[in-house]
């Protein structure tokens, strides 16, 4: 049915009503809200009287009743998440039925504008991206961040490693810092959650941080990975400063607001979903095939002898190491229900995933209970409780200075050498475990390491939050609400690494065998008091004033014990010859307040202004308040007739905002650190000098854009240009080491980042049985350092000749340089890590009972420093070695870096799913009415990748979630593709 038809019905209905009951003194309207597709009642829909603060929500059957003394007629505004908002004129005492239509183009969404307020998207004056549950998990994702990939314009989700359990970078609107924190703030049901990436301690086995770089390189997962994507109702991404300013000095990387599913009154509905599938290696990089002559040239006389003994076989080590078809299993159950006063949402998840490397995998068990309770007509209480247990086994991959990681070791394993079994070609057996030979050309046998090394992570996490909503005062024109929100995020993380003494590299140590036990305990808590006042004057002016206080605390304690010289078969840290211990605490506290005013003129012009002030213990001056203002304006021009010939909606908007990025909590301290000797406790200066004047980095952002809805609501277009001026950049320039210190954190520069986001949504086909919705997201950004008060410096990577990034006035901060210099002695720019653009294409097609959706993700440009290739070149095992290419690369090593810098463009089929909904009649007869619906399907993630990049995946970051220094490849855990079969049904 077309919209016009519906409007016609409504018009007729209201005329009829008006004719009958013109002069009633009291408005007393009752009715039912239904979903147009199914004609079933919609529980929990909002019904408001336009131009007043009065309203209600529908009960379990979708029924409602509104009374307004002293009014004779009014307009009802009926809205529900995921449906188009409808306005209906009513008079007197009347009974209406309002059918809502699905909102595929998200035209009626309500978007948060503050800690206690929200606005309809049609009025919103800045670009806030949202995603709903259905879009989020159309193909199962291991972790939440992975599910976000490709779904928004202005958001770049990029994995650091393919290892189970995550390690994913989420970047909103380009480079906004050089060395400050990079990850957005995650707020789940009002709790600011901890998203730390806690090091596992594997660095102590690989010594990855030992030589070239001081940055931790354990490629840990970041803790937002614990969140179960299936529990999420909506995600709102506050990309820009104008939207995020209310979060003050924690918001310059943006804010991701997650709302979990809520209970609904009425019959309890149970949903069950079961997925099974498998993981497999996404891409192979190949290996060199040897002859006796090349074996001798590469490994000397010994190499030739080994080649001849082996009979010149070719062993595909990628198959052996990365060839597992890891089994995947996910069971998800949820129940929603409740009475008119109390509603609940209960969910559980069990996910078990085996990796493409033997003994690697990920498990997650999650449970959630959300309760909403009406204490009285004026007081509402919401409580959220979430428990997660996640476990991962990640093996040993990535950079390494001991040649124990899988990728490095295989790089030094020629394909003719059989290290998988004993004595096949006369290798010396390992006396401690004769099943594995000693690797004659490398310090470790990676097959042996894979089979017996443990790198296990276990997280137990509890998230709890409460919201009290107290309607203190309520008249037809005015409404005053007091909202208290408090939450706690507590987790303990255990990392257990056991490197048994029988391993080849351990045998050669003087204390063979290592057991590392790390324990991290983290508590985040926050408490918000908000006061929100709204004033409505009969349909023309609507004012919302809000203000509040915020208290935010963070406490993290990390202890790592390192035991060496393990007693054979034992893994406890006291079963060892020596133990070392490390501890690090993070304590951080913030205090803040805000005030905000929103002005809505006839739903046509919308203006906001606000300011947040906050103080933090991380700043040099802890008592100093930093202020973050914001302002925005939008006007719905189509309502004034502009472009209205083809546009249903045309809304230019402008917004300005400021946000901050706090320095690391230890940046202000000059400290001495322990260096003991012979039982005496010693202290040496830490290499970082403290800066007692350090303060937050500041982003000032202006965004301009428009939102348009065109062609009878068949298309929506959103365009945004943003320009960030970032000042007081947090930098850690080198100090001359002769001062005793090596660096210091300073506020030392300015940067400009700008970009364009275009989001186009179309519904080319829209009918009762055939629906096609297609969305294109385009995103382009670039940055430039505009001022530097410190000397230009190199950042990231391992060394200049191995590729690093240049921080210099006039350059993009993601400029890659190497050993090459121009005539004047300056380092030549060899590439740029920032992509030229990103484009994603998301489609959903409904044909009767079939539903097909797919998501393509295209990154164009963005260079990667492929040191994985250097490793295999040095090991003599690169596939193209015998073409002379490797020799050419190696011959200029030290004077030429460009041969290891590659274009990281890719096109990936991120998600694909095909579902079949079994017709209701069949379901009813098949299960005797016990099952309400049944859906069967197949889905996949990362099914295809097209790239010229020669490593495993151009999505890579050895150094984890850093702003500058990403896209350095030292052979991480390779990426996998996953395929699922799924069945889901309702009870």
């Amino acid at each position, binding site marked *: 049915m077309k919209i016009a038809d519906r409007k016609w019905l409504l018009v007729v209905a209201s005329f009829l009503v008006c004719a009958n009951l013109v002069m009633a003194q009291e408005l007393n309207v009752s009715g039912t809200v239904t979903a147009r597709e199914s004609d079933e009642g919609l529980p929990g829909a909002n019904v408001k009287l336009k131009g007043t603060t009065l309203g209600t929500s529908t009960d379990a059957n979708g029924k409602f009743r509104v009374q307004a003394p002293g009014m004779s007629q009014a307009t009802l505004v009926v809205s529900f998440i995921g449906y188009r908002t409808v306005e209906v004129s009513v008079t007197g005492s009347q009974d209406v039925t309002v059918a809502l239509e699905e909102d595929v183009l998200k035209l009626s969404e309500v978007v948060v504008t503050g800690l206690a307020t929200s606005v309809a998207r049609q009025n919103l004056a800045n670009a806030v991206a949202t995603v709903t549950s259905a879009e989020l998990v159309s193909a199962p994702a291991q972790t939440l961040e992975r599910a976000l990939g490709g779904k928004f314009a202005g958001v770049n989700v990029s994995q650091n490693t393919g290892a189970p359990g995550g390690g994913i970078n989420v970047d909103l609107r380009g480079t906004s810092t050089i060395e400050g924190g990079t990850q957005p703030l995650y707020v789940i049901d009002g709790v600011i959650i901890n998203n730390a990436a806690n090091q596992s301690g594997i660095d102590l086995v690989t010594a990855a941080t030992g030589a070239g770089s001081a940055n931790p390189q354990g490629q840990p997962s970041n803790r937002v990975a614990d969140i179960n994507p299936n529990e999420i109702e909506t995600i709102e991404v506050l990309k820009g400063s104008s939207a995020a300013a209310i979060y003050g000095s924690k918001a310059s990387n943006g804010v991701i607001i997650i709302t979990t599913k809520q209970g609904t009154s009425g019959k309890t509905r149970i949903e069950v979903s079961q997925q099974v599938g498998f993981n497999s290696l996404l891409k192979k990089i190949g290996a060199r095939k040897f002859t006796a002559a090349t074996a001798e040239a590469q490994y000397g006389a010994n190499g030739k002898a080994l080649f001849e003994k082996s009979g010149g076989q070719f062993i595909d080590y990628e198959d052996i190491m990365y060839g597992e078809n890891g089994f995947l299993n996910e069971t998800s159950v949820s129940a929603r229900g409740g009475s008119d006063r109390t509603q609940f949402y209960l969910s559980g998840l069990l996910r078990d995933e085996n990796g493409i490397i033997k003994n690697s995998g990920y498990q997650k068990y999650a449970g959630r209970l959300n309760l909403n309770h009406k204490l009285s007509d004026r007081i509402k209480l919401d409580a959220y409780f979430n428990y997660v247990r996640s476990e991962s086994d990640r093996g040993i991959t990535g950079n390494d200075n001991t040649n124990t990681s899988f990728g490095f070791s295989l790089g030094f394993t020629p394909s003719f050498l059989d290290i998988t079994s004993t004595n096949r070609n006369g290798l010396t057996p390992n006396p401690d475990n004769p099943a594995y030979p000693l690797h004659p050309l490398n310090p470790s046998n990676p097959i042996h390491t894979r089979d017996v090394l443990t790198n296990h992570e276990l997280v137990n996490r509890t998230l709890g939050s409460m919201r009290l909503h107290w309607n203190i005062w309520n008249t037809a024109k005015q409404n005053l609400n007091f909202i208290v929100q408090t939450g706690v995020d507590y987790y303990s993380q255990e990392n257990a690494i056991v490197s048994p003494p029988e391993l080849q590299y351990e045998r050669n140590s003087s204390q063979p065998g290592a057991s590392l036990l790390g324990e991290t305990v983290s508590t985040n808590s926050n408490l918000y008091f908000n006061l929100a006042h709204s004033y409505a004057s009969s349909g023309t002016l609507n004012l919302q004033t809000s203000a509040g206080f915020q208290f935010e605390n963070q406490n993290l304690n990390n202890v790592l014990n390192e035991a060496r010289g393990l007693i054979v078969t034992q893994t406890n840290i006291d079963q060892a010859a020596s133990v070392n211990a490390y501890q690090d605490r993070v304590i951080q506290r913030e205090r803040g307040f805000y005030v905000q005013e929103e002005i809505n003129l006839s739903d046509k012009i919308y203006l906001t202004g606000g300011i947040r002030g906050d103080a933090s213990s991380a700043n040099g001056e802890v008592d100093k308040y930093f202020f973050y203002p914001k302002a925005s304006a939008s006007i719905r021009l189509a309502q004034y007739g502009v472009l209205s010939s083809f546009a249903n909606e045309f809304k230019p908007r402008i917004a300005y905002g400021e946000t901050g990025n706090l320095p690391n909590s230890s940046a202000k301290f000059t400290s001495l650190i322990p260096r003991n000797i012979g039982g005496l406790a010693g202290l040496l200066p830490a290499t970082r000098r403290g800066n007692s004047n350090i303060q937050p980095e500041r982003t000032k952002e202006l965004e301009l854009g428009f939102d348009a809805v065109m062609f009878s609501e068949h298309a929506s277009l959103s365009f945004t240009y943003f320009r960030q001026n970032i000042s007081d950049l947090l930098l850690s320039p080198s100090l001359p080491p002769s001062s005793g210190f090596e660096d210091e954190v300073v506020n030392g520069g300015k940067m400009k980042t700008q970009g364009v986001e275009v989001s186009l949504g179309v519904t080319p086909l829209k009918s009762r049985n055939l629906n096609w919705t297609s969305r294109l997201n385009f995103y382009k950004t670039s940055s430039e350092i505009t001022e530097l008060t410190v000397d230009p410096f190199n950042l990231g990577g391992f060394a200049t000749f191995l590729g690093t990034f240049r921080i210099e006035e006039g350059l993009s901060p993601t400029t890659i340089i190497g050993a090459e210099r121009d005539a004047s002695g300056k380092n030549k720019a060899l590439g740029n890590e920032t992509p030229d653009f990103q484009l994603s294409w998301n489609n959903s097609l409904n044909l009767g009972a079939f539903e097909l959706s797919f998501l393509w993700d295209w990154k164009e440009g963005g260079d990667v420093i492929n040191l994985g290739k250097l490793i295999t070149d040095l*090991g003599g095992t690169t596939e193209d070695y015998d073409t002379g290419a490797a020799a050419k690369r190696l011959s200029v090593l030290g004077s030429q870096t460009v041969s290891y810098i590659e274009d990281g463009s890719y096109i990936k089929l991120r998600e694909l799913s095909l579902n079949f909904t079994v017709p209701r009649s069949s379901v009813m007869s098949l299960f005797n009415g016990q099952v309400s619906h049944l859906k069967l399907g197949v889905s996949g993630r990362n099914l295809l990748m097209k790239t010229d990049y020669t490593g495993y995946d151009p999505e890579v970051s050895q150094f984890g979630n850093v702003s500058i220094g990403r896209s350095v490849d030292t052979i991480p855990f390779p990426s996998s593709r996953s395929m699922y079969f799924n069945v889901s049904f309702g009870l």
Partner: protein
Amino acid sequence: MTNKFRNKLLLLILSAIFVLAGCETLDFSNPNAPIVDDVTVQSLVSGIEAGMRLEWAIYLRVVGINGREVYYFEPADPRYTGEILFGTPDPGGFLTTRPWSARYRVIANCRFLIDKNAGAGVNGFAKTIQAYQLLLNLNYMYDNGIKLDYSGDLTVAVASRAQAIDAIHDLLDEGLADLKNAGASFPFRLTSGFAGFDTPAQFAKFNRALNARVSVYRGVYDHALEDLAESFLNPAGALNDGVYHVYGTGLGDQTNETFENPEASFVKLMGHPTFATNAEANDQRFARKVKVRNPATTFDNLTSNLGATITTSSTDRLPIIRNEELLLLRAEANIGLQRYTEAAADINIVRAAAGLPAVTLTAANAVDQLLYERRYSLFMEGHRWIDVRRYNRLSQLPIDRATDKIITSMPIPETEVLEGGGGGR
């Protein structure tokens, strides 16, 4: 309960929460570490001893590779068989920067100690160690000079080699003067690495031993003999008597990173092949310091079958200066003064200990013989490159790959000089 009463109660509870939440202060000290003002002399002294070991393995490898004593076959990092053998050390690379920085970190601790005004003993200790740390960096950077200014001001010029060696000499003399006024004992404890050198009087002998090395480097041989007379040189004593870095596995301690199991299927630290071909027959030092392996290892077009065995475990000590070097320093000073008989006496003590027959020294063979003995006695103790360089014989070192070069010095780290400076040779 009435609604009004309930609301009042609610308000009361909420304000209580509000007050409680506001209590915690934002102002607190570093939860992880102390500041300089709060710590004791003992922890700074032990920090110095511990810090002297930082990056010592890198220093020894680089000096060993530059002097073609060893190769370091590091599959995980191309630089040990790359930039320094190619002759293009990177002023920003870790081979350059890390040993340099570690020495200045120790010097910072020495300066903190001196600032504490904790008496002549503490000052004498701090100055002696400071001078030694400067000497190591000067050995590394040589003609490029070192920093004698610790302010971090990049406009202050790098001190030349001549200025630096004089300053080191002066600092050792100042330290000696302090030690002489320091009474009978130090107000702090030292580890077993300083066993026999842990009173001011005994420590002064270590100070003079270092100064003897400096005097020989400066070519003031008569001074060197005076220094040696006040040092712990003992022709009748064990050659290994001396001062050491000690290693351990205790909490926060450091293990000896030069240790490798010589029986391992792959060994990184390998003796240069000429260490075998140039060894005199039956030189016991050869068998003690390397192990001949079969098959030979080929890595990055370099081949060796000599596994270095300078340590037997990861808690083995490493020498700072020892009696054997002092004997050879005295021999060298005497050669410099053309007293070949006296020189031969010391050299023959060292040779006898290595199971070799006595030699006679002449003006023609004395330096060759001295450098031979130093090469085999002090293998991988950080001397060969410096010795060959002192006698302008770098060009005589072997070149293994056609494009390799011998370098004279490591560059000044790029972070020590204004943009465009530094640069190795």
